[in-house]
């Protein structure tokens, strides 16, 4: 198992008021993301536990892309990874902040 952690200073606070959201499942090629609104509005943290070791650079790039595209301030995202590909990771991260935003269109 490999543990990775990335913290970013971000511009935009994640929308909505929900404190907690969970999406995905730990299965082959999939992952779960637990989103918790625990941080100051200008911070985002992504904490990763993965069975696929040695992909730190790819994770770093996917997380950097995510905080660039999505309003994620104030959120800690905790990931249990079952060997998901980068595109799946990007979709799950987006889905997690979307779930945290709630039912907004």
């Amino acid at each position, binding site marked *: 198992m490999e543990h990775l952690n990335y913290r970013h200073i971000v511009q935009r606070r994640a929308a909505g008021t929900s404190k907690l959201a*969970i*999406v995905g499942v730990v299965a082959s090629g999939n992952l779960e993301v637990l989103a918790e609104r625990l941080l100051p509005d200008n911070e985002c943290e992504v904490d990763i536990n993965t069975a696929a070791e040695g992909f730190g650079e790819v994770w770093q790039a996917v997380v950097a892309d995510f905080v660039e595209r999505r309003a994620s301030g104030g959120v800690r995202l905790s990931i249990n*990874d079952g060997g998901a590909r980068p595109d799946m990771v990007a979709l799950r991260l987006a889905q997690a902040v979307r779930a945290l935003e709630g039912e907004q269109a």
Partner: protein
Amino acid sequence: MSASNSHLQVDSGLLSPSWYEASARQRVDGLLDAGSFDEFIGPAERETSPHLSLFNLPQQFDDGMIVGRGRLDGKTVFIAAQEGRFMGGSFGEVHGAKLTGLLRAARDLGSVPVLVLFDTGGVRLQEANAGELAIAEIMRAVIEARLAGVPVIGLIGGRAGCYGGGGLIAGCCSALAVSEQGRISVSGPEVIETNRGVEEFDSKDRALVWRTMGGKHRRLIGGADRFADDSLAGFRAAASALLAHVPPMQVETLVAEQRRLEQRLQQFGGSEDAIDIWRSLGISEPASIPGMAYDDFAELVASLKEVRHDAR
């Protein structure tokens, strides 16, 4: 027992009305009255498996078991749901302890029914001893809850089916609802083939698997008490119907169940295939059963007397 994470947001199940396709959390949300679910030991508490890291395997925050309280038709129920996609919905130490605790709470309260949404291949091999113990504890807790007057209803229609220790626990429940996609057994198809040879059971023959362990067959021989449509609404209706009539658990119930099973063995023990069993039930075109639509099958079931019994 603390109620927490009541504001947990999940991905919406609206695009996935099929029970088989839905996640455990989507099933819980779709089964209960809207917004009524209150989870115990939710994912934010990170009560994960202490064993998986020894095998370099990733954990899941809820260990594949979701337990809590909610309402069905306005009445309070306890609910447990297995996530069949995480390690095949297998029973590990934490996974099992969450269900045991829920059943014991139901026993102590004596007035809140329990719904168990099975989706499991059985014991988690990486924590086999703890998992086997969990199965035994859960079976005892189911019986103790039923003796205290608590209905324990099993709902089966997930990807992993209901196998191994899950099949044993299902056999202890007050009543079961199953969909066509649901499968109930102890040894799974691959296990039987591995141990007894392909002549005994060809696990790649999907039609054989479904007509031997599938929901329609289980319903026809009285192994399940209700046939559910494969949808969130279908299982909600089935759970409501089963909760409306749960006979008390007494010694007479067990005697009647033993008698029912003996008669079943006597009546069907010589049959080579499920189709022979269906024919001896008086079904004129047994080969048409697997292709039958939900409504037609439900109508057929209603006309058979073997599926009605007061045992369990």
